[in-house]
């Protein structure tokens, strides 16, 4: 898929990596792109490592396979760095985004010599500040949008506000917190 941006998500069952990949597909779709968002299914249980994928393109997407040489990787849970080869196949022109509170220099040591760009975000801190609870989804979504540059921040925030209004129609009180999490994450990812 020469013309598609390919993204791989690593998370643990229950953390919402799948949901985040579907939200990214949603928001890219809303800006006129062709999208794919799909998880890799197996025996699912809370806490087990899971993988999800996105393809985003200006052209119709025909390929239906997993992604082995992604342009970008998102790691929703840093404890996976000890057990999963998260940079496997990751293009060195690409980038990896990791949810961690540790300094970047320490995290890089765990990436098997990956030569591309490394970004970190403390999604727990962002989420606690914005929502008072730990939901890494929204901060990680904002981070990957910023790192990939698939759309400008203003468009992204407008689209997300629209979809939160739809998604949380029955509990509008959480919309502001989630928007705050997105805005904070856009600043915090480095």
């Amino acid at each position, binding site marked *: *898929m020469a013309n598609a941006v390919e993204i791989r998500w690593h998370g643990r069952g229950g953390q919402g990596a799948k949901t985040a990949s*579907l939200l990214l*597909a*949603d928001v890219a*779709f809303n800006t006129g792109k*062709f*999208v*794919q*968002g*799909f*998880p890799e*299914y*197996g025996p699912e249980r809370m806490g087990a490592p899971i993988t999800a994928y996105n393809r985003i393109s200006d052209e*119709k*997407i*025909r*390929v*239906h*396979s*997993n992604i*082995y040489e992604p342009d970008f990787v998102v790691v929703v849970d840093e404890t996976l760095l000890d057990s999963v080869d998260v940079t496997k196949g990751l293009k060195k022109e690409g980038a990896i985004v990791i949810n961690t509170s540790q300094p970047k220099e320490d995290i890089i040591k765990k990436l098997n010599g990956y030569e591309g760009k490394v970004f970190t975000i403390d999604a727990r801190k962002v989420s606690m500040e914005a929502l008072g609870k730990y939901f890494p989804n929204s901060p990680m979504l904002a981070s990957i949008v910023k790192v990939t540059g698939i759309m400008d921040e203003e468009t992204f925030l407008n689209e997300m506000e629209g979809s939160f209004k739809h998604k949380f129609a029955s509990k509008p009180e959480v919309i502001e917190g989630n928007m705050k999490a997105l805005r904070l994450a856009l600043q915090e990812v480095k």
Partner: protein
Amino acid sequence: MSIRERLSGNEAVAVAMRQINPDVMPAFPITPSTEIPQYFSAFVANGQVDTAFVPVESEHSAMSAAIGAEAAGARTLTATSSCGLALMWEELYVAASDRLPIALALVNRALSGPININCDHSDAMGARDAGWIQIFSESNQEAYDNFVQAYRIAEHKDVRLPIMICQDGFITSHAVENIELIEDDKVKAFVGEYCPENYLLNDNGTMAVGPYAIPAYYMETKRAQLEALKNAKKVALEVAEEFEKISGRKYGLFETYKTEDADYIMIIMGSAAGTGKEAVDELRAEGKKVGLLKIRLFRPFPSEEIANAIKHVKYIACMDRTESFNGHSGPIGNDVRTALYNAKADCEVINYVYGIGGRDVTVESLKSVYEALMEIEKTGDVGERYHYLSLRD
């Protein structure tokens, strides 16, 4: 104007069902088709359809209830996967021989064992000889489009047979992708009202459904059933032509991709066909004359039509997403070889088992199939004709 959306394959089929607004849906959940009755029961609860939703206690009961409802004169559908379809086995034959145009959304999944929830076509292939019309879909779009066309084929007076619309479990059923939906009123007008000629709740004529047939009648009944199934080819093409007028999307019995001048082609079905087209384009960019044929209508098998489309090709790979345990061939391999033999074609045909139990099918793996065909031409040595693709050592 069509509606630009992004939906998973399961959602897409559920939307088609909502637009059709059938009379009855008996269903029992099984991964990966569970979402279809789940979405649909929400449509029922929200009053978006006036379908009688029957939550039965097994797939055996789901198909039994579908047979009862359809025989009574109600437009009926259900959804299932894998072992769920296997549990319907007995009833599948009853539905077909009673000439009941039930529509079934099959989300393809491997049969046990070992227990596996991922995609292959062994469930559909187990039902291959049951007398149902079987149509396979490459994408969420095709699963939706094929379901919208399903009743027009199945209920046609020259056919009157049940129809199975297949899509690949998880690969398309759970992947969110772009889709163009057709407006509700256009779908409703296209599908039309169900007006069966003979049905059990008809006051103006009595009938028996599913009677005993002594040897003097059984064979003639089956021969008549075959004739009806063969008619599905002509009807599927007529319906596709009308469908193109409301959707702009063209469907045939199969799709050929860059086969006209091809020396090497693969014959494939389901979601891997799109991946295969990507492989074709990459090899074409290197000047290799490769092509692909994707089967849409698998039962009845478009034997003469496929033979006519490919008999000029020297090297053919048939791709089967199932194991038939006959030791030499898969279902597509068998059917294609028979078609070519009857057409007196001189093609070299090899057969691959691929993607079973959810083994990922990549552009690279499908390119290796074409490379194997080229190697046969180069060396003149066919070697084994039955292979497993992407098998670990």
